[in-house]
């Protein structure tokens, strides 16, 4: 995993897990890497990984069972919630930026439709 080193790394670790969960790369009940394994894999300070895991526990995303490891909380609703939450963030950013460029809501909608159409055509051409 490549980090953007201009942002706190523990937040990026949490985001990476949220994305993996939203995409379905990992699912409810799955065991995730131990803090130690993860720190070594991505060459990041173990204290930073500990902080990310602790925050994910507090958010109710993962739970650590002594002697067995850390698991994604077996709650399918949480997965949907995270997916929605992440989509919400992307949409908010997108709409704010479009407004900042002077586009109105209707224009944004039609631009989005056009873009989706042209993307599909490109895919069909391949």
């Amino acid at each position, binding site marked *: 995993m490549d980090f953007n080193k201009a942002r706190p790394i523990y937040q990026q670790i949490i985001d990476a897990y949220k994305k993996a969960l939203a995409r379905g790369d990992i699912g409810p009940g799955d065991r995730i890497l131990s803090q130690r394994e993860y720190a070594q894999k991505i060459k*990041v300070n173990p204290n930073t990984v500990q902080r990310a895991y602790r925050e994910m526990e507090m958010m109710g995303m993962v739970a650590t069972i002594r002697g067995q490891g850390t698991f994604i909380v077996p709650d399918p609703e949480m997965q949907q919630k995270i997916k929605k939450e992440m989509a919400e963030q992307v949409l908010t950013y997108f709409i704010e930026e479009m407004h900042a460029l002077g586009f109105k809501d209707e224009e944004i909608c039609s631009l989005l439709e056009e873009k989706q159409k042209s993307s599909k055509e490109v895919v069909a051409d391949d």
Partner: protein
Amino acid sequence: MIEFQNVSKRFGTVQALDHIDLTIDEGKIVGLFGPNGAGKSTMMKIMAGVNRADTGTVSIGGQTPRQAKEFVSYLPEIDHFYPWWTLKEAADFLRAFYGDWDQEKYGHLLEFLKLQEDMKLGKISKGQRAKCKILLAVSRNAHYLLMDEPFSGIDILTREEIARTLIQDFADHQQTMIISTHEIGEIEAMVDQVIFLDQGQICLEGEAEELRNEWGLSMVGIMKEVFRHANSR
């Protein structure tokens, strides 16, 4: 805990350290960053007990650096082992000297770093010599590990291997590691605390994650900013 109180050191006309006050907590990986001639090696040498401060005090776990030597493993920038020694002879020397030598760890790392015990330290490449130095410094379970420019002359793939080795070691033993380098990019994700040193003074110091949050920049970016301002004083 390592503490510098009002520490100064002068070599002839050069003020190598200029009134340094600093506290380093236990169980942290600390990056000591700065351009050439900033005073990084001098700070390391004073902590290792091979140089003495002119004024001020340095304490390592409540002891003087000289008293603390048995808890401190120091990797100097220079090649400090006899060039005619083999890696095994250097290891035997350290094992006889330090009670915290860990033979199992040594054997494991020897294999991991793809080194051979019969290698003559003066006859191998710079990169291999750097790997030998790291192997010998890390094979002690020392409470404090001081490494002065450990990555210089080592290729990128080996650097990554070494970074993994250090992280594994840190996770197992909860040492306090201080790594000095002018190549911050390599280790910026590894450090808890950073100290930016320039012309013998600390120009910025803090928790890496907090600094990223505050500045919205990487450590390399922060260093450029800090030294740009320092030089326009």
